[in-house]
Each structure stands twice: as structure tokens, then as C-alpha cells.
């Protein structure tokens, strides 16, 4: 499916909000994780979307993208620049909605399988599309997030399915505006203490680790 780049004007953020909160950073990274788990695509798709949307100033290369994603307080990575400017957060919102629109057919099919499973009281893991998505999401989460080893499978499956549902609504032509509004109004999540602090050294694991120069 081809989606024409379209400039969407997002509402202004509340006065004084110049950087993304920990919750916003975490939520943006989790939505990208959801998209990645659905499509198998990774940073290349995000960079291509940023280019199509003329957002290269905010998301110009893999290093910047790595930094933005690793600003998620839930990430295992320690150190690195954790601050995400509000304009960078806006750019990620536009990219996520763009990618969700591109993957709308896949998102919808997966969600329809989930709905059928719930109706028939079957495990979602047994539905081909849902099962693949859950396995991918849980595997990525366990390898990248600080609480990945301690959360049980049900808890991670719940998170993955909530992300899937949200992606359906963000796949709309109004998706970017919806996502931005939801982020600004979302209650603060429980996040690891001190995870918003700035640091110098960075390391990470997973497919979106910092690329070699």
C-alpha cells in the first residue's frame, strides 16, 4: 500500500513542555517496537518514513534514531543522551502514524484474528498472525527492556496487544493527531528511577543497537 506523504499539523504541546517526558519516550519506543514486530522491518523503514515526511532534520540517520529510541527509560542501555526534544517527539509521532498507515492491512488482519480468538475463547497465541506478532514483540521486549527478564509472558502479551490496538487507531489519516493527543494526556507510567538522567557512555543490545561507524 502506498501512502502519500501528508503534512499534519499537530496541536501545540502544553506551555513549558520542551522535552518529552519519560512516559512519552517509552510509549513512542514501544509503538515502534510494535510496528517492528508486525513487519520485521527495523530502522531502515523508520528512516525512509522520516525522509518521505521531510523529517530528516529530526531523524536523519541511524545514530540519531538509536539515541531517540534508547531514551526510553525502560531500555537496558545505560548512559547516552536521554533527552528527547519535543520536536523530535513530534517527528516520531508523524513517523509512527505514517508506518501504521502503511501497515494498516496487516494491523487490521491481526486485530481481526485477535477478536475472533477472544470470541471463541481461544488463545491468541494460536492464531497465526497474532501468535507471530506476540512472539516477536515478547522476544524483542525481553532482549531490550530492563524489566524484560522479570515480567511474565501474560503481562508482556497484554502490553503487546494494547500496542496493536493503539496502532490500529493510529493507522488512520487522523492517526498522528490522535497519537499526539494521547501522549500529552497519558498518565505517567511507573518507570525505573533515575532513568531520565543524562550520561556519557552508551551500550545496547538488539537489532537497533548503535551501528558501527
Amino acid at each position, binding site marked *: 500500500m502506498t501512502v502519500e506523504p501528508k503534512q499534519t499539523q499537530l496541536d501545540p504541546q502544553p506551555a513549558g513542555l520542551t522535552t518529552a517526558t519519560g512516559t512519552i519516550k517509552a510509549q513512542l519506543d514501544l509503538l515502534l517496537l510494535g510496528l517492528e514486530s508486525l513487519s520485521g522491518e527495523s530502522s531502515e523503514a523508520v528512516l525512509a518514513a522520516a525522509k518521505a515526511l521531510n523529517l530528516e532534520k529530526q531523524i536523519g540517520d541511524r545514530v540519531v534514531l538509536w539515541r531517540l529510541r534508547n531514551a526510553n527509560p525502560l531500555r537496558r542501555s545505560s548512559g547516552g543522551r536521554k533527552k528527547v526534544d519535543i520536536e523530535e517527539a513530534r517527528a516520531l509521532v508523524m513517523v509512527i502514524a505514517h508506518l501504521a498507515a502503511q501497515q494498516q492491512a496487516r494491523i487490521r488482519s491481526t*486485530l481481526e484474528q*485477535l477478536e475472533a480468538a477472544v470470541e471463541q*475463547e481461544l488463545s491468541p497465541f494460536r492464531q497465526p498472525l497474532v501468535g507471530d506478532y506476540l512472539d516477536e514483540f515478547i522476544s524483542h521486549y525481553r532482549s531490550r527492556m530492563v524489566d524484560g527478564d522479570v515480567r511474565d509472558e501474560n503481562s508482556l*502479551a497484554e502490553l503487546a496487544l*494494547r500496542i496493536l490496538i493503539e496502532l490500529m*487507531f493510529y493507522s488512520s489519516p487522523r492517526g498522528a493527531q490522535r497519537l499526539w493527543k494521547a501522549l500529552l494526556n497519558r*498518565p505517567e507510567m511507573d518507570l525505573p528511577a533515575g532513568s531520565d538522567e543524562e550520561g556519557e557512555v552508551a551500550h545496547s543490545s538488539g537489532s537497533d543497537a548503535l551501528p558501527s561507524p
Partner: protein
Amino acid sequence: MPGVTLSYTYQQPTSTLTVRGEAPSPPESAGTSSALPPRAIQRNFACQLEIRQGETTKTLQGDSTWLKDLITVIDRYVGSQLRGTPKGTFSGTVAIRPLDFIFHRLTVRQGENQIAQVDLSMTQLYDLLENLSQVADDLPQLGSLATPVTRAWYRQPAGIAALLVGGIALVAGVGLWASRTPEDRDPTASNSAQEQLTAPEQSGKTVGSPPSLAEDPLLRLRDTLAEQWQSSPDLQESLVYRVTVDETGSLLAAEPENELARERRAETPLANLPEVAPDPLPTGAKQFRVSLGPENRVEVTQIEPL
């Protein structure tokens, strides 16, 4: 003045919304009515919503107020879903609440004496929202379209919230079903989409339905509220209202008598009633002091007229 009838259809995979109404006839030089946009509609507005559920289609109908309520409620409800805090909500003639994390029960007024319930899946909710968002953009005049008033305001049917038995502010969780082995689902969630048309008067004791004349209005009010009041666990003190009831037992107004009652009115079965009672009171009307307290406690005392 003769007008032209306009009709527009908004289509999504599981949802079709048709709006129609009249616009003033355009001058002949302006071309045909087919060139008129939806915002040209000025009177006799009506809409029809079809929700496809497998082999069947549920059809709902309403006027501009109904559509405006539907837009408001669905937008607010999806907003709560996307903020991660799914919560039931209502406005006037429309209410929705989660059944579980994927199904939702939409309840709407149909005419004066009936309500319809339709259970929506998440994809159906998405399709409905898309149609409503589009029509809201296309009909900026919706809020100002006149709805014919056929009854005095205090004779209008009670709001949808007052007709719903059970808590509206139900928060749905994903639940254990997500495990790799099947688990029991919320027994209140239906396995298939369903629609029920029921007359409120036949649906048990509900606020706003006429009482048996033999009943004591105080006892009836107390029993009805006792059935419907579900106090929030964080409620520390009572919410006190002056409630006005007409001679048939229908609720006319509920005026908060303490600050907390005003703040938390939306949580109560009195949420959709007007605050101000008719002045003068209709013949036979009575007023009661209603106290809705923690642990679902309900106290009702009659206020003697001065």
C-alpha cells in the same frame, strides 16, 4: 421556502453512516444541488448508522442531537482507550462501556421509549470512529441544527445514563485470556454481537420510569437508587442532592447540595438530570434529599414544602 434534500454516505468496512437533511434551494446560477456540501444542510436533519456484524446488519437512527452525542461519546471513549485508561462514558442519548479489553457495549436511545444495545469489536469501533470523525469535519453546523421540541424540557425522557443498570465507569482489563491456554472470559461479554431493543419501563426498576401509583415515591426512589448506586472505592464522604420528582415518579432534577456532589455528579445515576428544577414546581411534584455514600449507601428523606 422550498428546499433541496441532500444525502451523504460515509463508508467503512463495518460501518455505514448516512446523513440527510434539507438545504435552501440554491440560486439557479449556482448549479445543481449535487454540488452542495454537507455543511449546506440547515433543517430536517436525520441520520442512519448501519453496523455490519458478520451476516447481519444493525441499524440505528437519530437526529442531530443524537449524532452529536454519538460523536462526543465515541471520541471521548476512544481517547480514554488510547491514554491507557479505558473507561465508560455517556452523553445525553448515547453511552458506551468496555465489556472486556476488545469488546464494547454501545447503548443508544431510539425514539422516546426504546434503547438499543450493540456490542462492538475494536475494529468496528475504529470504523465507527472514522465515519464519525469525517462527518464531524463535514458538518460543523451540527450543534446548531434545530431539533423539533415536542415536549416541555422537564418531560423529556431521562438521559441514557439513568436508563442503564449497572456501572458505566467500568474499567476493562485484558485479563488472563491472553495466556497460551484458553481461559474463561468475562461472563458479561457476549460471544457474538447482539442488539436488544427494550422499553425502559419493561427493563426493571430504572430511574425515570413511571412507578406503580400504589408505591411510596420515597421508597421507590430509594430502592431504585440503591440498585444503581455503585460508590467508588475512594469515596470518603456522602454526595448530597436535592432531587425533584414529578407526580408520576419521573425524575425532573438533581441539584448538588455539597461541593463533592457537584464534582462527582458524573459517577452517579443522577448524572444526566438537569440541576435546576422547574419553577414553579409542577403540580404533585415532590423533593427529596438524597445522600449517596461510601459502600453503596443510599439515604432518602423527603423535603417538606415551605
